[in-house]
């Protein structure tokens, strides 16, 4: 050991900080920052939700905003639509992610290139990807409509005229789901791929020696081994999908006739679009309560899964 190093060490040889104090010193900056930028606004939101705040000022109205939502006809529809949106998009993201990870994990030439080509939807700004989809879905000059109009057999065309996917209620909803899946899939793929690469090779070799087929190895080795990552990915994407705003806003602004209005879009429309800050805040609080309840149930389930698969 050199002289300077020894000197440094002896200089620093004093009574070490207690672990608890040191740990709190380490997390305090992040916690304070989050407190100011997230917790304070959250407290404000809760307070505003009990007022009729708008551009003209604010008065305390108690639970009126919540009672209005409870009695509203459209609000329950919005809640169900949001859960349906979340369930559908998350399932598809997980399925696509699993398929993608398996394909990119296969030992074929060109694998490194394929891995790069999957990532762009995740790397570019969401708003820019949405502009591309906006164009694809366009009835007049979009590629999808263009192809659909070419689907003709003996002078009988499947569609005569433009196919404007974002104009119909049903098609707009599913078109938005497809875009959301497109944005979310690379992230899930990447994490599942990493998890698959972490699976111990010996397990596969042992199974192979025992004569297990490809499907059997996938079902009995890969899936159980990466299960903890699958379930945590599912929760993370569920929360992100529930709160997915930009995609819907850019594609449809919640229309046509509310077909794609999820809770977060509704909140934005009420609070920012119509300047009803109080009513918007009540919706925001409901989002937080619903997500917190959902997450708690999910974490309870996660614990059981982890125990079942013997993970920590």
């Amino acid at each position, binding site marked *: 050991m050199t002289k300077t190093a020894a000197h440094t060490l002896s200089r620093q040889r004093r009574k070490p900080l207690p672990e608890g104090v040191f740990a709190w010193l380490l997390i305090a900056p992040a916690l304070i920052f*989050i407190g100011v930028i997230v917790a304070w606004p959250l407290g404000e939101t809760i307070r505003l939700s009990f007022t009729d705040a708008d551009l003209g000022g604010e008065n305390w109205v108690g639970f009126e905003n919540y009672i209005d939502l409870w009695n509203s006809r459209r609000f329950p529809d919005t809640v169900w639509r949001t859960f349906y949106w979340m369930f559908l998009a998350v399932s598809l993201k997980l399925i696509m992610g699993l398929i993608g990870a398996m*394909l990119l994990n296969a030992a074929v030439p060109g694998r490194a290139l394929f891995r790069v080509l999957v990532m762009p939807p995740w790397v570019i700004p969401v708003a820019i990807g949405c502009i591309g989809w906006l164009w694809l879905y366009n009835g007049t000059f979009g590629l999808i409509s263009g192809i659909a109009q070419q689907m003709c057999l003996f002078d009988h065309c499947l569609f005569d005229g433009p196919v404007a996917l974002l104009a119909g209620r049903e098609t707009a909803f599913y078109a938005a789901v497809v875009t959301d899946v497109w944005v979310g899939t690379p992230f899930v793929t990447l994490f599942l791929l990493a998890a698959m690469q972490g699976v111990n090779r010996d397990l596969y070799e042992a199974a192979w020696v025992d004569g297990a087929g490809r499907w059997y190895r996938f079902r009995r080795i890969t899936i159980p081994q990466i299960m903890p990552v699958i379930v945590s990915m599912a929760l993370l994407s569920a929360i992100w999908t529930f709160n997915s705003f930009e995609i819907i806003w850019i594609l449809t602004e919640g229309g046509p006739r509310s077909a794609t209005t999820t809770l977060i879009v509704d909140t934005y429309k009420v609070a920012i679009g119509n300047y009803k800050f109080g009513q918007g805040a009540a919706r925001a609080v409901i989002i937080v309560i619903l997500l917190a309840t959902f997450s708690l149930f999910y974490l309870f389930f996660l614990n059981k899964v982890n125990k079942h698969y013997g993970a920590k």
Partner: protein
Amino acid sequence: MVGIYIAIATFLIFMLLPFFEMFMASLRPLDHLFRSPYQFWSDDFSFQAYRDMWVTVPLLGRYIFNSIFIAFAVTGITMVFVVPAAYAYARLDFPFKNASLAIFLGVNMFTGAVLLIPLYRVLRTMGLLNTYWAMIVPGVAFLIPTGIWLLRSYLEKIPRELEEAAYVDGASRMYTLRRVVIPLAVPGLIVVSTAVFIGAYAQQFLFAITFNQTRELQPLPAGLYEFIGYQSVTWNEMMAAALVGVLPVMVIFLFLQKYLVAGLTAGAVKE
């Protein structure tokens, strides 16, 4: 083998289709848009839009720079908060450990859209509206939890013995963190920084259009809206600008992506 290639090709077509469509759109002359029947290709396709876009939106170069600058600033500041906190959660035992971790992860449940109005007031109180900070500060807050979550699982994999050896030699806790743990964690830091950078780059639209009115400071996604004029929308130039605008980050990502998969894998290996 052929089956796998067909499946990969199908998967990639889905992932890359919008980019292909944007590229084709950027080549189309404007009067081409409303031609019927639909044309996949015609002879008047050109790269004219890639020249004209710089004239239509003179600040385009600035917008591209702003996007990247904001993403880098968010990443740097986020990591300063994330590294010590992630270490505490990975290694140390302290009162309210789980409760405080739950607070961080709970932040994941909010997006900017839920808290927009009070956030606007907070930023106004701090005098940050219409500055770069108006877009950087909320970005950092919403990325800290993800950063902690990712880095913590990576740090847990670093062998404890090295730190213990440092303590035996009389090193302080801070010294050990700086000189032993952080150098060992470099691959993990690259992975987490890349993930944070992408998060910061991908989601600046909402904060930009809400908290910033200064044109010179707008990031690319907000700046693209300038192609929507009063008279006509120059779609082809907008598409060209979008593609050129994301190019620098795609190049950076190309260099970092191999660390990303390798680093995530290292973090996922069980002890």
